[in-house]
């Protein structure tokens, strides 16, 4: 795999492809099985949000390095309506739709670093890190 790749996120089946590529990257970074599973699950949640609420976007997957440790870094971005109240969106159980409201809060727990940037009208970008 190349060090970075950017995948489109325009339809549901793109989420499946993103999961598979993130898994590959996590294997190459030699993350343990549980860590692999966690970053893939987080990617699935955040990608689905970007598709459903953000109208689609793209996902960058990078084989990175964090303080000398192999890492996977993901940047999932959409150009949708953004999130007005980020604090509230990150609360367990908060959903504006019919979800369980676990995507954002749960994903944050699954990764080593989680950064959400969003502005009303300017889209949403979520950066996820998992290292060895």
């Amino acid at each position, binding site marked *: 795999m190349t060090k970075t790749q950017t995948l489109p996120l325009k339809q549901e089946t793109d989420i499946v492809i993103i999961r598979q590529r993130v898994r590959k990257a996590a294997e190459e970074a030699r993350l343990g099985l549980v860590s692999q599973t966690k970053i*893939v699950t987080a990617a699935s949640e955040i990608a689905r949000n970007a598709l459903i609420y953000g109208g689609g976007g793209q996902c960058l997957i990078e084989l990175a390095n964090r303080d000398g440790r192999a890492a996977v870094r993901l940047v999932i971005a959409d150009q949708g309506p953004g999130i007005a109240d980020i604090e509230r969106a990150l609360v367990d159980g908060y959903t504006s739709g019919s979800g369980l409201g676990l995507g954002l809060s749960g994903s944050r727990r699954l990764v080593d670093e989680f950064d959400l940037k969003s502005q009303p009208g300017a889209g949403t970008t979520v950066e996820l890190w998992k290292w060895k």
Partner: protein
Amino acid sequence: MVDRIPILKMGKYLLLSIQVDMHDQLALDLQEDLTEQIVRHRAKGVLIDISSLEIVDSFIGRMLSHIANVSRILDAKVIVVGMQPAVAITLVELGLSLEGIATALNIEKGMRWLENSVNEDEIAGEPESDEDTDAPSETGN
């Protein structure tokens, strides 16, 4: 990509094994297919093998809960078997409890559980309402 998960009928039971990474529509179709087949075959039990699933996210978790709820209403028992440990750990951390869903380690144990709970119901006579199942655990809704 696969566009249907096969559902096998065996006596009073329906068996299915999810062996592909499901996209969301495929999960929704499965939910619908299964409901339809429970009714058509008057199935008493459903066994869902997820041992090949490498992740369960909130969408698939929701599908499993939905299947369990609908089956309960249709008077069929459901058991989910073979969840990988890494998947189970991740689910808990994600915050998905999958409550109301009976689980077993493997197909054999799951099948035994189904047979026991279906037989118990038959002995108790219809209609039944109480659920006094022993292992594996099944929490109320």
